[in-house]
């Protein structure tokens, strides 16, 4: 792992990369100001100086979004069966899931539940980047679909907050097929006339972008969130040109017609409530 650390975070390692380091102070990656961590936390993890939206984990997202105490978590008792028995060198995917000391990992890479947002009942799925880069494997797919089932059964709007690097490599084609599985479940929701609000946060790429994230009836993005199919580094390596400023950022997607609106974190609750009212749910 020493090698991994040196070369930078690999996007799949279980060690969560914290954008917000431990300690009292942190430096904003955007405006470089030194910020008091508590102030940032109280500001929904948004830089008070430049409005940089820090990445937040699933539980934090839920805490910020739903009416206090209203979450009933669904399908939380699920873990990957490691279908490929994936091993590389001395390491095994299975062991790394088990050994994860991060308490959040009990949610896997998505937290699904029934909750209220400004008094409106919803089925909510919040992805957690701190678990294997928010990657989608069998657990994410299964939890997502069970959430969709509940949304159909109880005629509730579905709100999904994406934050993911894509499909989980360690589960091979099983992970790849979760793209089809989640999209197929959304087709059922669509046929049932259900409302689906998709919220894209930094980052939403790969197999998650190319499946349920992009299928919202309404698609919202947080400011400057990275959204795309292929990550910018891979594109740069492949076609070897300098990428344009703002490429694959939320504003870029609005400009090209793939996102309905950009909403700041502080307004997310009220905007979702508004949309639900408009759609008569």
């Amino acid at each position, binding site marked *: 792992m020493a090698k991994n650390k040196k*070369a930078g975070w*690999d996007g*799949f390692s279980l060690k969560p990369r914290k954008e917000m380091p431990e300690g009292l102070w942190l430096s904003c990656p955007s405006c470089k100001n030194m910020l008091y961590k508590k102030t940032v936390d109280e500001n929904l993890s948004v830089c008070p100086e430049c409005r940089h939206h820090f990445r937040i984990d699933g539980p934090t997202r*839920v*805490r910020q979004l*739903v009416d*206090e*105490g*209203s*979450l*009933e978590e*669904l399908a*939380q008792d*699920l*873990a*990957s*069966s490691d279908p490929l028995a994936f091993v590389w*060198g001395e390491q095994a995917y299975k062991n790394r*899931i*088990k050994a994860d000391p991060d*308490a959040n990992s*009990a949610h*896997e890479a998505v*937290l699904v539940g029934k909750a209220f947002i400004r008094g409106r009942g919803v089925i909510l799925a919040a992805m957690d980047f701190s678990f294997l880069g928010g990657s989608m494997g*069998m*657990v994410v*797919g299964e939890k997502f*679909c069970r959430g969709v089932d509940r949304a159909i059964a109880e005629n509730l709007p579905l709100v999904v907050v994406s934050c993911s690097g894509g499909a989980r*490599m360690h*589960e*091979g*084609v099983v992970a*790849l*097929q*979760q*793209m*089809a*599985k989640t*999209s*197929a*479940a959304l*087709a059922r929701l*669509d046929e049932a006339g259900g409302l689906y609000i998709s919220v894209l946060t930094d980052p939403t790429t*790969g197999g998650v*972008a*190319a*499946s349920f*994230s*992009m*299928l919202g009836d309404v698609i919202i993005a947080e400011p400057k969130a990275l959204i*795309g*199919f*292929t990550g910018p580094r*891979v*594109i740069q390596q*492949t*076609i070897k040109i300098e990428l344009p400023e703002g*490429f694959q950022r939320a504003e870029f997607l609005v400009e090209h*017609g*793939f996102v309905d609106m950009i909403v700041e974190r502080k307004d997310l609750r009220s905007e979702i409530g508004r949309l639900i009212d408009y759609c008569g749910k």
Partner: protein
Amino acid sequence: MTIKDIKNTALQYLPFENEIAELDRQIEELRKQHLRDSLQGEASPAIRALQVKQTDLLQQIYTTMTPWQTVQVARHPQRPIFSDYLKNMFKDVRILHGDRCFGDDRAIVTALGQIGREKVMIIGQNKGKDIKEKIACNFGCPNPEGYRKALAKMKLAEKFGLPVVTLIDTPGAYPGVGAEERGQAQAIAVNLMEMSRLRVPVVCVVIGEGGSGGALGIGVGDRMAILEHSYYSVISPEGCAAILWHDGTQAPRAAEALKLTGRELLKLKLVDAVISEPLGGAHRNMHDTLYNVEQYITKNLAQLKRTPIDTLVNARYARLRGIGADCLPASAFAARRGKAKTPGRLPLKDKLAAARDLSETAAQ
């Protein structure tokens, strides 16, 4: 298929075929000598002996291939590509161009055609033969307009009750600036959703490379088959190696870990069938390869056409929902992990939700 055919097509050998190449050279030499001595009729016993030896060797190599060798065969420059299938496996083909929106992506070809006695909509990923064609086809890497064209033609097929046949062969969807500007992710996502509920039979076959989301974008159907020496993977072995070992040359090890061969995928129930290839791979005998694929498709189309469409669409959905539904209970790991902190939840609700969840799980 005989050695003669191999010689006539100036076969390119893969790195693990050195001994085969050497035998070919020896056979060729003997043959020349044979001609020089102006001998008529049957090949000499020496030649025949070498041919037998070579067949045995091919058999041995191709039945004990490593996953990385399979990837190499799947990428063989002389492997039959979509245009070969279009020309030789389908009859009375009418190519339909364009997505009616942006352009005509040559990496995905859509056409009306006949296979056996069945009229179908053909959707296939094309890599191109010569360099000019390869560039036009973007080496089989589709842009969003390719996926949108595929969907438009599938909708056309749905309207007129034509079954859809998709032939998959792509390293992946194109990673370019234009592709991102035009919504590569959205194009693939919409295809997944719409193919899952398309009201005509859909048969998919991986004929070469099944490169991740780019393959899946035309790969949701009622039947999923893969040619023996093809692969289907969530990420390229090189890409996986770059992540795990920070070294693309570890691709053979990554190929092993990814379980990307037909045999492995069949074991995992991710494909319905592995279509066998002639001895020495599809590139040594296009005719027999196409015959095997055609047999698979016609047999399954006949079956699917007898099934009521509602049953078919429900089965398609159930099959997708079944993939990865066999999760383990997380509580198995919980002891070592410690209790998760869930925000804003009351202890009683916690218990109720957990109880409900368990009953849900049991009901699955």
